[in-house]
């Protein structure tokens, strides 16, 4: 088995980059997961005027500096999506697609991009609503399911589900790069997938079945799969305590789960680059102290 990492850092914005730099400087074995182009929130900023030492730097330049710094310290970015993080007690297990990676500590720096849940979503989670097609597909053998995909890559999950389910209705909630392509069937080889261009509104239960209300009507089905780009932190990490929409942390950036830390926008306002970077530094030092305790 692959050796356990000291620190897994989720997110490559200012908090994640800063945490990775400090943790690596402290000789810890780091796994940095996220976009290889750092955060869009940084790179798309017009100008940043309060980052000490870098007056009037553009977002694009700051992102470039972050990447240069990582390169200089030989810290690679692993561009893979973490679907779940399990607090196992003495360590954490990160589910990355179908693989599991272990780390002694985790620093969450995933920002605040997650949207609001649909009405009825939270109440029915695990009771007909699922976030993971590959996890629950087998429970839908021969049944009907609706898949709402927020990105084109979810098409493969709809396809996977359709191998087992009797019928799948797929709602792409995104614009495809080429509108012309919309005219082509998405799943020419899967006659049991019906593609509908519609928007989900609300989820409810009726006569023991699931109902997805949409802008143009309603769909009755056995199960509803919601496949988003990012989910709220307590769904990414079962058992994680929140404070409103943010992860609850103390001054050492520790969460309620021993060995897990959080930094950056995910811990709350002010949403400032330098605040995120500072918290990333604190979180990394706290994680190092946690590993070296006793």
């Amino acid at each position, binding site marked *: 088995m692959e050796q356990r990492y000291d620190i897994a850092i989720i997110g490559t914005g200012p908090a994640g980059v800063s945490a990775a730099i400090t943790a690596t400087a402290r000789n810890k074995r780091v796994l940095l997961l996220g976009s290889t182009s750092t955060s869009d929130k940084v790179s798309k900023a017009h100008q940043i005027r309060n980052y000490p030492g870098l007056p009037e730097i553009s977002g694009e330049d700051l992102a470039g500096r972050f990447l240069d710094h990582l390169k200089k310290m030989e810290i690679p970015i692993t561009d893979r999506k973490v679907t779940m993080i399990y607090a196992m007690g003495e360590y954490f297990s990160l589910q990355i697609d179908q693989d*599991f990676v272990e780390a002694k500590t985790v620093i969450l720096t995933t920002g605040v991009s997650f949207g609001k849940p649909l009405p009825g979503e939270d109440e029915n989670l695990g*009771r*007909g609503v699922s976030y993971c097609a590959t*996890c*629950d597909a*087998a429970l839908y053998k021969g049944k009907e399911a609706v898949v709402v995909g927020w990105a084109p890559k979810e098409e493969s999950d709809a396809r996977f589900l359709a191998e087992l389910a009797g019928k799948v209705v797929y709602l792409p909630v995104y614009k495809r790069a080429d509108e012309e392509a919309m005219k082509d069937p998405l799943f020419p080889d899967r006659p049991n997938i019906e593609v509908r261009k519609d928007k989900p509104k609300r989820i409810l239960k009726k006569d023991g079945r699931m109902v997805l209300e949409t802008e143009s009507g309603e769909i009755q089905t*056995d199960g509803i799969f919601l496949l988003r780009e990012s989910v709220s932190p307590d769904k990414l990490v*079962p058992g994680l305590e929140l404070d409103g929409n943010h992860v609850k942390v103390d001054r050492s950036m520790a969460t309620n789960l021993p060995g897990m830390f959080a930094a950056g926008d995910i811990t709350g306002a002010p949403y400032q680059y330098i605040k995120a970077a500072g918290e990333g530094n604190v979180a990394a030092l706290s994680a190092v102290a946690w590993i070296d305790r006793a």
Partner: protein
Amino acid sequence: MSVKKIDAPEFEAAIKSGVAVIDFNATWCGPCRMLAPVLEELSEEMASKAAFYAMDVDDNPGIAARFSISSIPYVAIFKDGVRVDEQIGFVPKEQLRAFVERNID
């Protein structure tokens, strides 16, 4: 005590009296694989308070349908044959302990 794997024929006897914690799972389910060692530890630590069982939903579709299980891992607590509480999805050990504790009196 550890977690005892059971199938449908043993189910009624398992839940019949006292507190039974049943983990419904499947071999292909990632979160179930993560939850199994946590339940194993708890079953040792809480051996005097509850009996712990595991059941594969693929091998026992009848039981899964009877309790309308649509997402796993699904942990149910039975008290003298009656389902009194449920927990869906992975939970860290201490929270799972609290879940079992609150159903013991």
